[in-house]
């Protein structure tokens, strides 16, 4: 069965075609690859959480809840320079007018965790609706590898949609706004949590 010249030509072209189809198949699959997927998913998830998804920072939400009215300026303060923010925090205990401190971080208000000091300062980490474990072990969600962090150091958990900070009996402690956390404590927005050499805040 010696194949004819024409059969071989057709087979040769078909082979090259299949080869290229394979490559374009991969390129097509890459388009909807996991890494690309993420952006779209985040965008749809973030919409209900932040009132103005385009610029959640610059314009504070129009405060539909009356209780939030006295603290309407708080989110806008976080947009300004860190030094200014620091002065706001240090001024907070001095002003007794604030009855319950800054606004609570809930799944509705807090969308991200921002590292404010330490080696990865400036990194963000999106908050979903599941707890965040913090520690040196590699199965934590937020792995902090310095000598002051315990293997399972602390965790951020949800209690009726409120973010609570719990210290998991760590050696060097977890500090919320400078005070050591002993019992699960509710975490306000834009307040420094310090673990080891790293501090972070929950932000809108």
């Amino acid at each position, binding site marked *: *069965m*010696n*194949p004819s010249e024409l059969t*071989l*030509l057709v*087979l*040769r*072209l078909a*082979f*090259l075609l*299949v*080869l*290229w189809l*394979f*490559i374009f*198949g*991969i*390129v097509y*699959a*890459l388009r909807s690859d*996991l*890494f690309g*997927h*993420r952006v779209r*998913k*985040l965008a749809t*998830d973030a919409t209900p959480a932040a009132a103005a998804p385009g610029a959640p920072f610059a314009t504070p939400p129009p405060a539909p809840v009356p209780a939030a009215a006295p603290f309407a300026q708080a989110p806008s303060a976080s947009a300004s320079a860190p030094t200014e923010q620091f002065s706001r925090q240090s001024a907070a205990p001095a002003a007794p007018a604030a009855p319950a401190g800054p606004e609570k971080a809930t799944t509705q208000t807090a969308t991200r965790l921002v*590292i404010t000091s*330490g*080696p*990865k300062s400036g*990194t963000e*980490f*999106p908050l*979903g609706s*599941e707890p965040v474990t913090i520690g040196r072990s*590699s*199965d*934590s*969600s*937020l*792995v*902090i*590898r*310095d000598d002051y962090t315990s293997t399972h150091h602390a965790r951020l958990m949800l209690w009726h949609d409120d973010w609570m900070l719990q210290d998991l009996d760590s050696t060097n402690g977890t500090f919320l706004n400078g005070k050591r956390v002993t019992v699960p404590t509710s975490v306000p927005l834009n307040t420094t949590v310090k673990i080891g050499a*790293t501090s972070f805040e929950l932000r809108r």
Partner: protein
Amino acid sequence: MPRQSNQATVPREAAPQTGKIRRLHLPQKLRNLELFLLTIACGVNLGAVVLVQLGALGLIDTTLVLLGASLSGLVFALHFVLRFVAREADPFLLPIATLLNGLGIAMIYRIDIANNESGWASAAVRQTVWSGMAIACAIAVILIIRNHRVLFRYTYVAGFVGVALLLLPLVPGLGREVSGARVWIGIGDFATFQPGEIAKIALAVFFAGYLVRNRDSLSMVGKKFLGMRFPRLRDLGPILVVWALSMSVIIFQRDLGTALLYFGLFLVMLYLATARLSWVLLGMALFLGGALIASQTLEYVNGRFTNWLDALNPVVYDAAGGSYQLVQGLFGLAKGGLIGTGLGQGRPELTPVPQSDYIIASLGEELGLAGIFAILALYLLLVARGFRIGFAGQDDFGKLLGVGLSFVIALQCFIVIGGVTRVIPLTGLTTPFLAAGGSSLVANWIIVALLLRLSDTVRNQPRLVV
């Protein structure tokens, strides 16, 4: 990634609420995509072997087809291992590597037919067996290394192993000299192995670990000059050591390509770790200076340069060790034209060593420009996936390792294919996955396994590492 892992933990979250443990079957989208692409790749490989037989023999011989099918079986075994131990691994690496490996086997088989070799003398049979061993090694790596950070602990061990493997061919009685280069080891007459291929993995691990530990002194200090921050004189130690190592490879092992490969690898990883262009300029100046001196003093390097610059001169063409091989390869590529002569219908055997160093020229003759570009696109995709994995990694060691391992494949392609197509002087290195040679196959499959492991850990946990 965080979103993806959120989804993966859904069953764990749901369990306490319902009160009993329910096992949810999440569809393994990535693995299914991989299975689909893998089936196509195996089909193309089978088609290539059948086309070779139709073109060269005019009939279909089932023995080698069966051998190829058993290799496909092993690749599918690797796929199923991934389903259990690395569910989130990158789905493109395995099909691309399989396709490149299969195309190589088909081409080697084609040369065997031209040389009338069969049985154990046939390079294609040996290549298939080596491929099987290489894939088995890849499976073992995936199963043993469950987290790439384990390698970080063995940074200096890896460095020691890498240098030892490099020096192994120089041991008397163990080393073998093949066509001038002393880069093989062998026991008796069989089982020759090129330890330098494995050394590149060990050195990539070492460079990554070393640079993660010590990069601060290499990146922070130094004087600004011409808009770049140049390192201090005392920080030049590491680069000089690696430079001396690659120069000694040129001098003692008489292998230009390997030296360029290791030095290029170190330079790129140094650049990645420090983000300083001055290191690259400094390193390139060092290497070019060294190569220039070598070309003046070492006869074989000088010969390579003459063959490259003056290839079509009849004197050089006819000289012993002249440009005959290079020019034959170019003639073959020219004969191939746009769509090639068709598998099994060209004369690639006219070029010396058409199945190893010159496999690109052989493939170019029979598949044409369209086929060569397809192969280059496959390499491009493979390396791009590796870079993407490194880029997405959270820990610095994983980042450096991922990019380093994939860059080594890219650089090796450039050195070989650039040499064959007369872009740079020709040096003896294997084309990854394609060329006949067991050590190269084993090394490259291990690289694929490490990248698969890396991509799995990157996509799973942890989400943020400080």
